[in-house]
């Protein structure tokens, strides 16, 4: 299957420091790759660099046939990449409906606020509530809905379980599982291994700015010793 995302020898960081030190990663069309690793390994930096929110020092980021390394975030977004950021970052003063409309202005591929409401009825109930009046789980759903309205080919999910109660994480997991049929490829950065294993086809482990392991989720789970060596768990 053709790769939606193909990253080669990506180097990036902040103010001269190097966080990503030659990352290679591919994501097949419709596939979900969980990017795992300890804190500070560079997972979120990778997501921000792919999104164009951080300019790389060098390397290649291809979305299909299009080179996006160094492109501005709005260009990357228009090319078909959407992000669900860590901490949700919904527009607090705007209502749920406004949060969705602000994304759907430039939406495409059949995603409309109504379709998001069908997928997430809870948001429909709260469409007139401001972003800061929502629970953490509702905000996460709103952030996912907002990303979907971009009609993405690639979805970047940065710690979607961050700060959520286990029961709410389960709801978010169900929602993301329901999206599998949409054929949207995804990179899932996640500390919650249960959630990562539940959603991902493949696992990539990052250490010190590099991908040091890549396997299917089933293979990764089968080898507890390796998981423990790579992540300190298992």
């Amino acid at each position, binding site marked *: 299957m053709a790769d939606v995302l193909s990253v080669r020898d990506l180097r990036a960081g902040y103010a001269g420091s190097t966080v990503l030190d030659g990352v290679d990663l591919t994501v097949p069309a419709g596939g979900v790759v969980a990017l795992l690793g300890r804190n500070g390994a560079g997972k979120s930096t990778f997501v921000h660099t792919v999104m164009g929110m951080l300019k790389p020092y060098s390397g290649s980021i291809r979305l299909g046939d299009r080179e996006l390394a160094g492109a501005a975030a*709005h260009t990357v*977004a228009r090319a078909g990449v959407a*992000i669900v950021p860590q901490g949700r*970052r919904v527009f607090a003063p705007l209502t749920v409906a406004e949060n969705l409309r602000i994304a759907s*202005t430039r939406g495409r591929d059949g995603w409309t606020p109504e379709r998001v409401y069908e997928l997430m009825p809870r948001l429909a109930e709260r469409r007139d509530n401001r972003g800061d009046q929502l629970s953490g789980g509702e905000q996460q759903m709103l952030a996912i809905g907002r990303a979907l309205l971009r009609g993405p080919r690639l979805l970047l999910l940065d710690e979607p379980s961050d700060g959520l109660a286990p029961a709410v994480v389960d709801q978010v997991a169900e929602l993301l599982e329901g999206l599998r049929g949409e054929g949207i490829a995804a990179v899932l950065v996640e500390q919650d291994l249960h959630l990562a294993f539940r959603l991902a086809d493949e696992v990539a482990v990052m250490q010190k700015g590099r991908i040091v392991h890549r396997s299917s989720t089933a293979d990764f789970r089968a080898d507890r010793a390796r998981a423990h060596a790579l992540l300190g768990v298992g």
Partner: protein
Amino acid sequence: MERAEAGATEVTRSSPRRLVLAGAVLAVLVAVPVVLGAYPVTTMTRMLAFAVLVLSVDLLTGVAGLPTLGQAAYFGAGAYTAVLVGLHLTSDAMAQVAAGLVAGLVAAAATGWVAVRARGIVFLMLTLAIGESVHQVADTWSAVGGSNGLAGMPPISLFGSPLLASGFVYWWVLAVAIAVFAGVALVVRSPYGRTLRGVRDNEARMRALGYRPALARYGVFCLAGAVAGAGGALWVAQARFVSPGDLGFEVAALALLSVVIGGAGSLWGPCLGAALVLLVRDNLSASIGGHGPLVLGLVFVAVVFLMPRGLAGAGRGKGPRRGRGKGRGKERPS
């Protein structure tokens, strides 16, 4: 989580109660020349024109998150242009307002592209520099009267009839001010207004949604320039005179003060703030030994402590002002 701030002063949906209140305010405003004498009417006319300038400052400061000290420059561009049109071309009030609006728009378009690249204190200083530069030009350029300004503008006319009575000039200024207010309110509630609020609250997120924040900011900067220019034309419709003092730092600072007192982002609150500021500066000051600026300073301090969301947010608690803290609009991986 980027926590929510109060935002209670945000422009919100119309409710029947609000519409009734707006209708009552409108009725009172229309009745002013009928019940008050010429002097209060001219004072109210100045307040309305100044409120249009303040509206432009609120559009930038409250809606787009760009606190500015430069709008007096575009107000002045509109005022000077209207007087020049009145002196040399026509006394038609509509033509003068249109000319003032275009002058403000062009001046903002010419200077804004640089200014909107900056945010926060840098933007504030850039707009201050623009304002002071334009003030300096007006103060020294003999073609526009230098420090003496331009006087002798004939009374404005509508459909060929000169508006000699202060009440008629008031009604004209009121009509334009309402039209400008309605236009700005429509923009704020439009998808573009939503974009501006999104850029204000989280610029990085808007980029990730495919928007170009600099373009959105440039658009609102030009629009605010046009509004300020129209305000300048209204100002001279009554005064029939313009001088560098009409576009100096004091005017810019009072306009920003009006926004703070009124409640940034609400549109109507800053208009109320504009009336209060001019009332203290031009009318009460004489009766308190010329200590108007001191009173304004005390009002400012009182509002900051007692009504952090301004007059428009009074009665909604003392929550934090719509914050624009450090790092606003920036995201960084944790």
